[in-house]
């Protein structure tokens, strides 16, 4: 054999491209849709962004159940605006994933068939009005930490979608906190309602950051390629440090008997997460997995004739002479 094989030449070219790609990320440049990127980078981003989009869309469901019974007109309007924003976030994120070559139909199909995941936290039920507060304060609070990090992600369209989303999420978190503050300062029943909601949403929110770094199979490559800039455990620690003093100040407790303050590090140290529950909900066995997917499938199936009519109407408009 003389010289290099085609594979080797391609490999050499691949290595050069990869080196340049990684150098760009190291320089803090954004990767844009038409730029060269490793297939794995594209695959990981489509997975993350579509999962994120699905989470926004499925996330409309638990709060949606309380729009019709929000206890004041002002609360009702705020909650509606929030759920509307979530739909909007789903929309930007689907667009961001489309820039990587995924189509909305493929992504929806993956969600409805159960192949694609969404944030497991939405597989827990919203049982009382106080849950609107707990979801806003804890779930959105956790989401913001993750999203603030992703606003610095190396992929331009994802980063820009996140910057926009973060601004609105801050407002969502404040509305949640405001509900919890109001209840915590209210009647005994209201305080009990708030505590019950915090008890139920605390651990699912802690789980939102994902497995420990040592068990997270995607973390290493995502950190290397600048999609993530902080680890799951770092973000989780930041969340605990932020939330514990807020809850204590309101006279609410955190449902973690092992929780304690560590003088040396200045961190609130939390007890171990129930990882069996975490994996079980991811596998589809959470309290509401079946209900959430049934709601999405029903909306999709009931809307089939509407989408067909839209296509037929669009085709008809196109066929018409100008």
């Amino acid at each position: 054999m003389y010289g290099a094989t085609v594979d080797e030449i391609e490999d050499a070219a691949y290595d050069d491209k990869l080196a340049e790609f990684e150098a760009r990320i190291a320089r803090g440049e954004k990767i844009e849709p038409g730029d060269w990127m490793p297939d794995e980078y594209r695959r990981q981003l489509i997975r993350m962004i579509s999962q994120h989009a699905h989470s926004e869309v499925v996330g409309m469901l638990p709060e949606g159940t309380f729009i019709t019974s929000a206890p004041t007109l002002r609360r009702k309007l705020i909650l509606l605006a929030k759920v509307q924003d979530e739909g909007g976030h789903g929309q930007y994120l689907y667009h961001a994933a489309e820039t990587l070559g995924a189509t909305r139909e493929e992504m929806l199909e993956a969600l409805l068939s159960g192949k694609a995941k969404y944030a497991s936290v939405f597989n827990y039920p919203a049982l009382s009005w106080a849950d609107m507060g707990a979801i806003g304060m804890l779930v959105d609070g956790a989401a913001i930490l993750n999203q603030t990090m992703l606003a610095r992600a190396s992929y331009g369209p994802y980063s820009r979608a996140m910057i926009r989303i973060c601004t609105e999420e801050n407002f969502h978190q404040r509305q949640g906190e405001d509900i919890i503050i109001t209840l915590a300062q209210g009647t005994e029943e209201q305080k009990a309602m708030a505590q019950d909601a915090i008890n139920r949403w605390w651990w699912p929110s802690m789980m939102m950051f994902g497995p420990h770094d040592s068990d997270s199979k995607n973390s290493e490559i995502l950190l290397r390629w600048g999609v993530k800039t902080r680890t799951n455990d770092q973000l989780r620690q930041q969340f605990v440090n932020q939330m514990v003093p807020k809850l204590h100040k309101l006279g609410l407790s955190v449902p973690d008997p092992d929780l304690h303050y560590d003088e040396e590090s200045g961190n609130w140290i939390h007890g171990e997460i129930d990882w069996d529950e975490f994996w079980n909900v991811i596998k589809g066995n959470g309290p509401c997995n079946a209900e959430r997917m049934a709601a999405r499938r029903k909306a999709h199936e009931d809307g089939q004739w509407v989408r067909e009519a839209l296509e037929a109407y669009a085709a008809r408009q196109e066929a018409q002479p100008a």
Partner: protein
Amino acid sequence: MNDTQKQALAAYLIALGDDELILGHRDSEWAGHAPILEEDIAFANLALDEIGHAVVWYELASDATGENPETHPNHLAYFRDVHDFRCVQMVELPKGDWAYTIVRQYLFDVAERIRLTALAQSNYPPLAEAAGKIKGEELYHLRHSAAWVKRLGLGTAESNIRMQHALNELWALAHQLFMPLPGENDLTPDDIVPVSANLLPEWEAVVRTAFAEADLTPPAANTSPSRDRSVHTPYLIDLVTEMQKVARLDPDATW
């Protein structure tokens, strides 16, 4: 305005607010369940506007009778008995399929636009001003529902049949919007509000043209099953119970 007229105006505005609140409630039920994501967003936004308008009417009603406009709107929504609501029956009915939702919204939006145009000329300046403001937002609703009437009327055979069914069911009910509202007769002589029946011909002309363009035909029967806004369907009881269930857990609590 004399005291009788103030009371009449409050009753009139509460009825308008009830239409908006109850329709907004039905619209909000689509959030998370619409046929395409864009409509989850659009209908949440519609509901937001409708309920926001209900608040505007309730506040004006509170002003007219010297109630506190900060607290009275919540009282009207959450602590009135279901029999005291004064919405038309059309807005109480369940959301139905997408065709039903669209036809109802369209029939309502056209009627509302015509009424708001008249109210913007009211001799009572706060009412004229509020109507002018709301009219701008309602124009977007009307464009949205009118576009859907066309798409679904002219889409597929199935979409056309579903739209026609919805129209058959809703057409007579929509005529209740043109029956005199509570208090109306005390207010029309001074041009504070329009005579509802006088708004009907324009409404008919607009919607009949749009339906004809969408290959849809209103049925012959056009007599509303009820003239009186104090008569409701059983659906309103369920709706109001749901709407008030958290607020009534503790009426003295702050939420």
